[in-house]
C-alpha cells in the first residue's frame, strides 16, 4: 500500500466522520484512522529502504494506542454514560461534508504556496495533514456531544501526527513517546470528565453547559 493511498484513506475517514450521525461509527472511524496512521512511519522508512527497530516499536505503540486503546476507552465511556448515540451537530451533515471539501481545496491551495526546505515524501502530506487538522477543529466546534469533541481532538492530533511523522521525523523517540503518553492521559481524563458530566447533568450535550458566563 502506498503512502498516497494511506493518506487518501485517512481523508475518506475524515469525510465519513463529517457525514456520520452515529457516535459509535465516528469512534470506529477514528480507530481506522489510527491504524492507518500507524502504518505511515513504516511506509515512509520503507520508501528509503531501511527499517530501524525503534521505528517498529514506535509504529506498534501508535497502533495499540490510536487503533485499540483510545477507541476502546471512548466506547467504554459511551456504554457507561448510556447517552443518546447521536453526535448532535450544530452544523448539518450535508453542510459539514461541503465544508470538508472546501477545506480540502483550501489546504491544497495553501500547500501549493508553501515551500518546504526539503522535499516532502509525497505531495499529499502537507495538504492532507492540514485538512485533517482543520476538520478536527471543525468537529470540535460543530458537534454538541462531549464525546464527539474528544473524537474531534483525536482527529486534530492525527493531523498534527501526519505532519510530524512525514516532515519532521527526526524528533527524538523519547519526546514522541512523551507526546503519546500525554494524549493517552488526556483521553483518559476526558473520559472520566464525560462520565461525571453524564452523572451530574444526565446528558453530555455541551451546549447546555452554560451556567458560567459574563
Amino acid at each position: 500500500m502506498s503512502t498516497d493511498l494511506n493518506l487518501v484513506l485517512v481523508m475518506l475517514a475524515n469525510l465519513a466522520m463529517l457525514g456520520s450521525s452515529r457516535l459509535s461509527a465516528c469512534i470506529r472511524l477514528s480507530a481506522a484512522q489510527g491504524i492507518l496512521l500507524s502504518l505511515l512511519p513504516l511506509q515512509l522508512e520503507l520508501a528509503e529502504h531501511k527499517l530501524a527497530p525503534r521505528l517498529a516499536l514506535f509504529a506498534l505503540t501508535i497502533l495499540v494506542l490510536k487503533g485499540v486503546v483510545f477507541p476502546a476507552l471512548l466506547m467504554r465511556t459511551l456504554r457507561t454514560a448510556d447517552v443518546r448515540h447521536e453526535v448532535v451537530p450544530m452544523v448539518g451533515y450535508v453542510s459539514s461534508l461541503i465544508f470538508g471539501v472546501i477545506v480540502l481545496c483550501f489546504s491544497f491551495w495553501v500547500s501549493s504556496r508553501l515551500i518546504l526546505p526539503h522535499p516532502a515524501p509525497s505531495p499529499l502530506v502537507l495538504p492532507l495533514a492540514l485538512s485533517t487538522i482543520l476538520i478536527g477543529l471543525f468537529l470540535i466546534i460543530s458537534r454538541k456531544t462531549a464525546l464527539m469533541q474528544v473524537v474531534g481532538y483525536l482527529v486534530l492530533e492525527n493531523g498534527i501526527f501526519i505532519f510530524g511523522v512525514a516532515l519532521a521525523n527526526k524528533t527524538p523517540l523519547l519526546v514522541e513517546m512523551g507526546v503519546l503518553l500525554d494524549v493517552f492521559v488526556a483521553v483518559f481524563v476526558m473520559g472520566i470528565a464525560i462520565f461525571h458530566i453524564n452523572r451530574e447533568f444526565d446528558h453530555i450535550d455541551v451546549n447546555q453547559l452554560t451556567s458560567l458566563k459574563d
Partner: protein
Amino acid sequence: MIVPALILVPLCAGLLAFWWRADGPRRALLVLTALVHSGLTVAAWVQWNNNLHSSAPIAILPGTWLALDAAGLLFLSTVSALFLGCAIYGVGYLGREKHQPHIDYEEHLFFSNEPEAVFTGCLLLFLASMTLVCTSQNFGLLWVGVEATTLASAPLIYFHRQHRSLEATWKYLLICSVGIALALLGNFLLAVATSDPRGPTTGLFITDLVQNPGKLHAPWLKAAFLFFLVGYGTKMGLAPMHTWLPDAHSESPSVVSALLSGALLNCAFLGILRAHQVCVAAGVEDFSQGLLRVFGLGSMAIAAVFILGQVDFKRMLAYSSVEHMGILSLGVGLGGRGAFGAGLHAMNHSLTKACLFLVAGNILAAYETKVVKDVHGVRRLLPLSGILWIGGFMSITGAPPFGTFLSEFTILKAALDQGRPIVAVLYLALLAVIFIGMAGIVLPMAQGEPSAALYESRRREAILSTLPPAVFCLAVLAVGLYLPPTMTAMLDEVSVALGGN
C-alpha cells in the same frame, strides 16, 4: 543533581499521596514536599550565583534535556515559593472542608468533595509538571510538561463535585488540550525550519537552536512561533484564547486558583519565551515582538472590558490575570528594558495574585458568596484579610511603592524609549480603566458594615490562612523598595536572552 531531584521529589510524593489513607500525615507530606522543593530551589539559586561570580562559568551544553538557565530559574522560584505558601494555606483549607455531602450556596444542591488523597496527589503532580516545564531545555519535553500541567490540574478544579466546577473543568480540559495540540504543531514546524537535507537534524534543543541560528529557515520559524503563541497563549490566557480562564479560576478552590494564576500561567508564558528566544537568535525578533505586542494590548483591552462592572470577585481576579499576561507579553514585545520589566513583573504578579486569591478564599469562606454586592465590611469582619485585600488591590493595579509599580513603570519607559508613544498611551489608558474598575469592586467590599448575623458569628482568622498571603504581599512590597543585585543580574540575563538590554 538538583534538577532531577526537583522533579522527582514531588512526583514520588504525589504518587505516594494517592495511596496514603490517613489525612494528617498526607497533609504533612504536602508541606514537607513543598519545603524540600523550596530548599532545592534555594540551592539552585546559590549554585547560579556562584556560577555568575566564578571566573569560568559553566554553560549549558548542547543536547542537555534538563537544566536551569536564568529564565527557568526565575519562573521556577516563583512556582516553588507559591507552592510553599499554598501548601501551608491548603492544610488549613483542607481541615475546614467537610467530608460529608454539603449544600452548595449558589444552587442549593448537595455535593461532595473529591477524595482528599486525589486532590493532594494531583497538587503534587501539578508541581512536578510545572517544574518540568521550567527546567526543560528541549521543545518536545517542554510540550510534554505543559500538557502534563493541564492534565494534573484538571482534577484540582473539580475538587467541589458540583455542576459549575465540572463545566469549568470540561472547558479547561478541552480548550487547553486543543491549544496545546496547536503548540505541538509549532514544535513540528520548528523541526521543519531546522531541518537540513545534508546533515542530521538537531532534536529541538533550545541551546542548539540559539547557538546555531544560521541553519534556521525564517518563514517556517515564523509559522512555528505563531503556533507556539496561539498554543501556549491559550494556556497562558492571552485574549482571545482566554475563555476557559475566568471559569476555571472562579470555580476552583481558592488555593488552586492561586496556583493556576500565579504559577501555571507563567509556565505557559515560558513556552512562548523559549520560542521567542529562538526567534531573537535567528534575527526575526521583529515578527515575534510585533505579535506579542498586539496580543498583549488586546488581552489588556479585553480584560478591562470585563473587569468594569464585574459582579463576581473571583472572576474579576481571573480577568486581572488576563490583563497581567497581556502586560507580560507587551513587555517582551517591546524589547529593550521591556523584557527586564516583564521578567520582574511576572514575579510580582504571581506573588500579588496568589495573595489576592488566597484572601478571596478567606472572604468566600466567611461570606459564602462570590457576588460583589453581597460582601461588605471585610475590614471589620476579617481585619487582617481586609488589609491584605486592599494591599493586594494596590499592588495589582501597580500603585507605588509595590514591586508591580516598578515593573509596570519599566515597561512604560521601554515603550517610550523604543519610540512607541501610541503603545505607551494605550497601555496607560488601559491601566487607568482597570484601576477604576477594580477600585469600584474592591473598595466597597472592604468598607462598610457586615450584616449583624455575620458579625455576631465571627471567628478569629486562622494563622494558616492569613500568613501565606501576608508574606506574599510583603515580598512584593520589599521588591518595590529594594531589588537585590543578584536578582537584577538574573533579570538582566533573562532580558538579554529575550532580545532586550
